[in-house]
């Protein structure tokens, strides 16, 4: 075999699709989709142009936030958001612990397992905002509906991760406790709980952080909290107050994120 059969220049090998025909077909498909998709977007450019002045005012409001003139509304929204976050996390975690235990295949009988997994699936599939719409319609406006929404959403999150964690415990420890003649409750308390507790605490802190972020959103549909204040500020075109609220949200989320990651490191 002659050396001329080898290519003299090197080309980077494809990483994902090895077949050339497939690659071309997919590239054409992407282009066709993009043309079709961009065609559906109708843009009213004169409206966009008019909005630019407003956008500039918003950026100015963000750079020179006005904390004082609406401070009463902002502080009330903040208090609602923070209390809602804490109570809903506590209640949500308290409810998700039994559901999480029930959804672990190695602890629960088959029929309880299916019921608990179904509860988790329902809670995870629905958006917080959609749940909030229903709870507001049922329980009236205000933070109580928000509290129920966030508790409901917490159940799906914590119970699923807790159940997966329980299913992955070290079976040898559970076997050892079982060999002493322990009852089911003792098994959970002495074999399972020590193994999953650090992770449960970590997840709860993480969920506290998520719940605060969500509490700033569900206010838009009437479930109280800082989101309602923000919505009002934007409706009144008070962009400097809106900027102040957004900066407060960003600051609290940053503090919560750093402190919860620090706490999780400390606990593990």
């Amino acid at each position, binding site marked *: 075999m002659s050396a001329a059969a080898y290519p003299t220049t090197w080309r*980077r090998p494809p*990483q*994902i699709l090895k077949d050339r025909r497939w690659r071309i077909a997919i590239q054409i498909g992407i282009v066709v*989709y993009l043309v079709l*998709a*961009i065609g*559906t*977007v*109708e*843009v*009213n450019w004169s*409206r*966009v142009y*008019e*909005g*630019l002045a*407003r*956008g500039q005012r*918003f950026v100015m409001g963000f750079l020179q936030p006005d904390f004082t003139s609406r401070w009463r509304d902002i502080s009330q929204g903040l*208090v*609602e958001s923070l*209390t*809602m976050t*804490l*109570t809903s996390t*506590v209640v949500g975690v308290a409810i998700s612990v039994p559901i999480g235990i029930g959804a672990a295949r190695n602890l629960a009988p088959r029929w309880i397992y299916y019921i608990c997994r179904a509860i988790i699936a329902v809670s995870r*599939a*629905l*958006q917080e*905002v*959609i749940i909030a*719409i*229903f709870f507001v*319609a*049922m*329980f*009236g406006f*205000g*933070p*109580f509906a928000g*509290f129920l929404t966030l508790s409901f959403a917490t159940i799906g999150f914590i119970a699923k991760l807790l159940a997966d964690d329980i299913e992955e415990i070290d079976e040898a420890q559970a076997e050892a406790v079982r060999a002493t003649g322990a009852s089911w409750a003792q098994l959970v308390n*002495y074999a399972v709980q020590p193994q999953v507790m650090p992770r449960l605490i970590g997840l709860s802190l993480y969920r506290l952080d998520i719940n605060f*972020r*969500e509490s*700033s*959103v569900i206010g*838009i*549909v009437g479930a109280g909290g800082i*989101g309602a204040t*923000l*919505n009002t500020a*934007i409706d009144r*075109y008070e962009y400097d107050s*809106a900027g102040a609220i*957004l900066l407060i*949200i*960003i600051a609290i*989320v*940053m503090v919560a*994120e750093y402190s919860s990651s620090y706490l999780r490191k400390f606990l593990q």
Partner: protein
Amino acid sequence: MTEVTHHSQVWSYRTPRARLLLWGGWLALVALFVFCWQVMTQNTIWYFVLDAPRQAADIGGRMVPPRWSYLPQLLEPLWDTINMATLGTIGGVIMAVPIAFFAARNTTPSVMILRPIALFIIVASRSINSLIWALLLVAIIGPGLLAGIVAIALRSIGFVGKLLYEAIEETDAAQIEAIEATGASGAQVLSYGIVPQIMPAFWGISVFRWDINIRESTILGLVGAGGIGLKLQASLNTLAWSQVTVILLLILVTVVLSEWVSAKMRHAII
């Protein structure tokens, strides 16, 4: 030999000190919870809360049977919603890539100035929900799909940027050094040393974000950003609960399908 007497003969799970600390911790948590509960429910009108079961039964009764004849009218908004999520994801990813390279410790051009700015952009984008972005953008550039696309894109920057810069920081330094040893320029090191290493992570993150964006774009219409949420808002405002059922079921099916597609694709890539 003296007998040890100060140890109790009965085994206990925790030391007395740990028990006391645990008890104190629980007490503090309960106290905080009760305090927050009091503050939160100050203005709650309990009449409405007690009335809730009746309201729920009422709404439930109006929601069934679903009005299936409404379904054909929903297909076009659904197509809009999917486009909004896809185009928004593409836009977000395009903006996130340079920010991720600025934020990663090993590729950032300046640690003192650009890195903190990139990190702040990531945190700001992550902490503001896409619904709030949409609320702002509808006020600025008017209602419609464009506001939704930009909202999705701005929200995606933080997520994609954060995961991507962590992937860049975790790249294998030996491969980069090997490329550098051949005399490659900075751009060549980036293209041949770093990019091939983060490519699988990049596609995985993008597809994952697309899946989340489909979920989020279904509700952006509530604040006027187009798509199926607009129909949801209209049906809620006219109290057409039987149409709301159809919309919610359609959203559920779309979300489950997109989750399935994204799981399949990520499985194929990684």
